[in-house]
């Protein structure tokens, strides 16, 4: 009845996966780097099965199932790696998908298991052997291989979406139940509201609004991103302005693309690497002191460029150097102080921690410090603030049921704080939270931390101009 993990049984794997650690395990012919096409044995061996990760895991905390826990998933990856289990095993495939990749487990792992890297590889391995439906293949190809490989296409797509949302077509579609017929009702609600104006990285440079006399201003290059640039123009505007208030020169380097996190998350590593190279080229050319990213998923991913391209002879070093210069906007603002606004912002605010900020980058105190710098702001912690909201890249579209449960839990905790503003720091989370808030009809706004800080700065400016106008009129 008992089996020993220590002695792998004869491999039933179609790919002969009983290969030693690190060897090429190429099931699919798409990805060719041995080290990333299957979870690395050295990484899963670091798991001593202590189980301390279990309760941090959103899927475990909903299902209370070992397979749906980080330790269970590592055991599955290990079993596949050691040839005990075929990579086509239903549990393995299901769990690689069900994992949000939120990295909460990695943040609490005392053994330092690099779960994120394991999971990416496991997901790629699963993606390679899965029999996908034709529809899913079309969607994935469209998303990963066509749409998000060029910001031009993103803008084109966003513009049509804008038309859909503003022309009355959306109203009509919702009204007529077309979406329900197509089974797209849930997904449609998750579409971000497209901005009227897009942010285009055209090489513009914004000078600082204030500089210390003795030093040259810090030059900051902003990664504008894909969704962020078409649906979160306000976050970009706030980022640029807030950095200028804090004495930075902000540049929007030309030639940048989507950061590639979406692709990596979806197991499309080759495409992710290609986007990373293009971004490195573009961002390096800006000669900035700091690369700033205002979406936590993207800042996390750019910081991972070194790992992603570690086997690329031309880019490995450059990627690592760029990653070292990259900061999340909340991190950079905290580093800069930030300069405290003069105006009072009497909002009741709670904070929903993006996984890729809190767990992936262990940035937890900085966003709170930024909010604490705002006079009059009434900050209330919500319960389980660092538990995933269920967005997780494309997760809310591919695993709607689990995502909905997580969102409901998050909204309950938010509501309990009676906050009027939910602060966050990531595109995916904000889309998810906004959809949830709208669906429940909660009288709550979802804003990026930098938007809240900048709201105070804008009040300062209005105050100054108001005072100025008072002066002139008198």
């Amino acid at each position, binding site marked *: 009845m008992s089996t020993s993990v*220590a002695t792998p049984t004869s491999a039933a794997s179609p790919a002969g996966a009983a290969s030693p650690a690190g060897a090429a395990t190429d099931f699919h012919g798409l990805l060719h780097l041995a080290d990333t096409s299957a979870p690395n044995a050295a990484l899963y061996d670091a798991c001593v099965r202590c189980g301390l990760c279990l309760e941090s895991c959103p899927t475990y905390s909903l299902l209370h199932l070992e397979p749906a826990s980080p330790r269970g998933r590592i055991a599955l990856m290990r079993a596949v790696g050691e040839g005990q289990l075929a990579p086509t095993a239903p549990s393995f495939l299901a769990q690689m998908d069900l994992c949000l990749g939120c990295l909460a487990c990695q943040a609490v792992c005392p053994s330092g298991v690099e779960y994120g890297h394991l999971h990416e590889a496991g997901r790629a391995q699963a993606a390679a052997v899965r029999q996908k439906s034709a529809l899913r293949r079309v969607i994935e190809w469209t998303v990963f291989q066509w749409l998000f490989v060029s910001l031009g296409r993103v803008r084109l797509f966003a513009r049509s979406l804008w038309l859909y949302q503003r022309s009355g077509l959306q109203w009509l579609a919702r009204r007529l139940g077309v979406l329900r017929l197509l089974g797209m009702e849930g997904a449609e609600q998750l579409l971000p509201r497209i901005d009227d104006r897009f942010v285009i990285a055209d090489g513009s440079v914004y000078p600082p609004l204030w500089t210390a006399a003795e030093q040259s201003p810090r030059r900051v290059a902003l990664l504008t991103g894909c969704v962020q640039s078409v649906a979160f123009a306000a976050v970009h505007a706030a980022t640029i302005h807030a950095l200028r208030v804090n004495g930075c020169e902000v540049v929007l380097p030309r030639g940048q693309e989507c950061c590639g996190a979406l692709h990596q998350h979806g197991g499309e590593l080759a495409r992710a690497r290609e986007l990373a190279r293009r971004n490195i080229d573009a961002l390096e050319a800006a000669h900035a002191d700091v690369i700033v990213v205002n979406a936590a998923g993207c800042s996390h991913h750019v910081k991972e460029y070194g790992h992603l391209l570690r086997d690329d002879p031309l880019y490995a070093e450059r990627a690592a150097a760029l990653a070292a210069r990259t900061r999340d906007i909340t991190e950079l603002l905290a580093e800069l102080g930030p300069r405290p606004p003069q105006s009072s912002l009497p909002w009741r605010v709670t904070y929903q921690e993006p996984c890729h900020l809190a767990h992936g980058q262990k940035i937890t105190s900085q966003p709170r410090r930024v909010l604490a710098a705002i006079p009059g702001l009434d900050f209330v912690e919500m319960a389980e603030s660092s538990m995933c909201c269920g967005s997780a890249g494309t997760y809310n579209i591919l695993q709607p049921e689990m995502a909905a449960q997580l969102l409901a839990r998050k909204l309950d905790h938010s509501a309990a704080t009676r906050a009027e503003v939910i602060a966050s720091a990531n595109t995916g989370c904000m889309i998810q939270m906004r959809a949830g808030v709208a669906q429940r009809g909660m009288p709550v706004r979802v804003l990026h931390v930098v938007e809240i800080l900048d709201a105070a700065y804008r009040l300062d400016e209005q105050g100054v101009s108001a005072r100025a106008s008072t002066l002139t009129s008198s």
Partner: protein
Amino acid sequence: MNHAHLVHALQAIVGADAVLATPDAKLVYTYDASFDVHMPDVVALPTTTAQVSQIAQLAAKERIPLVARGAGTGLSGGALPLHGGILLVLTRMRTIRSVDAGNRRAVVEAGVVNQQLVTAANQVGLTYAPDPGSGRTSTIGGNIASNAGGPHCLAHGVTLNHVVGLTVVLSDGAVVQTGSALADAYGYDLTGVLVGAEGTLGIVTEATVQLMPQAEAVRTLLVAFPTIEDASAAVSAVIAAGIVPTAMEMMDGKVCRAVEAAVHAGYPTDVGGVLLIEVESVADGLDAVMARIADICRAHRAGEVRRATTAAERAALWLGRKSALGAMGRIAPSYFLEDGVVPRHRLPEVMAFVEEAATRHQLPIGNFFHAGDGNIHPTILFDRRNQDAVARAQLAATEILEKCVEVGGVVSGEHGIGTEKQNYMALLYTQDDLDAMWEVKLSFDPAAQLNPGKIFPRFYQPGAPANHLPPTPADAAHNGHSPAVILHKMRSDDALATAFARLVGADAVATTDAAAYAVGDRQPRLVVRPGSVEETAAVLRYANEQRLHVTPVGGNTCRHLGGALAGYDLALSLERLHAIEAHYPSDLTLAVQAGATLAAVNAALATTGQMLPLDAPLAGRATLGGIVAAGAPVTGLRRLAYGTARDLLLGVQVVRADGRSFRRGRMVVKNVAGYDLARLQYGALGALGVLTALIFKLQPLPETSAAVIAAFATPQDADGVVQRLLRSRLQPAAVLLLDAALDPTPSAAQSLRRWRLLVRFDGRSAAVERQVNEVAAWMQDANGAAIATIEAHALEACWPMLTDFSQMAACGAQEWLLRVNVRAVDTAAALTELTAACATDGLGVTTLADAASGVIWLRLTGAETRVTQRLAHWRRRWPQTIVAAAPNGCDASLDRWGAAPSALTVMQRLKQRFDPHGILNYGRDLVSASLLHADAQTTTPAHMTGMEVLHVN
């Protein structure tokens, strides 16, 4: 039933999504946090006790092993399905049913996570003390199965000390409740045996746990030492100085480095070892304690002594300590985590041995452990794929545990035996010891289907009973009153005396002073006073063969406790067994023979500044064996501060009815190696065996003590102060509501009010003074009259009068002693009701109540019919109402114990297995009284006549 049918049947019970049957889905349930791997046949995730019961019925019918599992963080393989079968995963039973702040109780389902319970308790200012390293993941059910400890168990005790009741599914699917949500329960302590039984006796689905107030103040010190031996010596020195910190944790340099890499808590990385020391209590004088600890550490070559200044710093240090195990993954992928416990004063020697073993076997061994408890966790690190390393690791593990046993320790303190430590059990226990545990196993689980193959050594075979006369069918039917027995019993007392004189010597046998050994209104035919364990065994062996009724007697201070004896041939007096066998002052442990009196032991301990804080009535006569055997009815008035004998008992030596003897427990404060046969003796009134020796955990004598007393017109008037105390962070040793007649102070005369509230504090002078003043002020607020402070000396002088109020040695004509358990917060209301009823019925009454525990003593005077009528009424209201003493000549059939516990069947099986002929104190304890009663109802009149004949003396 084939696999598909089994799966289908389970799905019908728990639903399709709660059954995992495919190999890939089950694969993740083959492991826990230990080394072994075992595959279940099928995994089921029930959500209710009813579902667990249905599954147990299914498993019993199909004879399939049933293994319960929580979060799978066990470190010994306790939840691994060694022989396959159904793996019952209880992680979906995670409802906290209630948190009762006033009574400091919570009721939780087995799958509730330890941290989840702590968080819920914290919300009402309380906490749940056991804090295993796995606490943020592990379940209460799992904690119970392995009697989990944790860093803070040094002061607060282990899971056993905090679990008061359980809902258990037995192997046949029966659902029973053990223990009680109230302060005590009567009958055998099944809760105590189930805790630490690793799911081999029953499946715990719900637990009632005791909560305690969060400490008013906490101080945390991180102390660095050049070597781990220095740190070990410092641990002993701190305890020897009379300081019991809440936690004293050790981590060696290797572990510090791994932990620091994981949590960045500021652990030094260039040291031999560190101690993480924490003290908690009321704030007054706490800094001085901390300073004293720091001085002792410095005297043992401590380097840096750092105090955590913020809550965040403290949390980071603890996170580091609790991450130590996981952090070992940074050094090697596999480990054997040992869990030995040794007497604290042997720590330096044992740690040196561990270090030497590491060198000899060329394996890194990490050490992070509960130094204050002497509970070591050498973690032997290796790579599971290196077969040679695995073999060396196993060898090192064996050597280390052999060393632990050699120095007087045990092989598991808090992780359990599981599959990993099974064979080490033979290091610790004899065949007779294991056989006694096997009786427990079969009493609960006759078909041995629950978690089979665990705990006992793999090669264990139950031994043959020592009794040479096989029981006859008549024995089974008549509880030992077979015709053969009648023959012997007809023999003269002189013949009996001669026979026993040959066993123990003529001096030790008497027929003359039988009156001093009377139980109820019966006197023994013979008094036997064995002088050794061997003689005790010989006496019992012979008595068992001759089917003589034996009552073990200590000081006979509970003469009136319990039902009428079925027979009383022999008083087995333990008075000659009164030696202190060992006392380790720096360990705060004591081994003592059962016949030693509480007063004598405390007099001896006082010379070393220590005490056994039991507070039983008539301490000058009451023996320790008797106190443990009597259990709840003799619990002391200071249980709030020190616990009861159930909490302080570490080990027992017992002679069974058939003369075989067993030991369980050693001079160490934690022990989860095998079933807790010690707890089984608590409150069993010697019905399961005769206690011959005991091991206790001690306490340092408090620096001082004082009490404050006030007069109130009604219990309700005092209740405000009581409720305030129950919800405060003060640490009273006793909260007593008593009749003015019992007022030990001159204030008795100063107020005509009928009631007194007395609150006692033990501890550091500063803390006692402040708390007394605070409570005096509360009494003032509540309009208490004649408020007075009783200083230490006066308190010591009057205390025996209070504890002796509930003595059961003497009982006047028409005098009755009742003990009523109520919810702590209801004490005052119940007192009002009880005394009003007495007034109505014209019963005389004096009362004393432990208001913090909800224990009410009533001494009544009045006619029998009035008392019994009232008793029946009260029992409907408060089922746990016992008649602790009744006048001689009262109706022998009077039910002394009240409502039968729901697990009575298991208790009866225990009695029948440990004492198949019913010779021990038969009829007196709750269980044998129930057997006797059942017997009386089913036997023929002819047999009844036989019994009549038998018992004519």
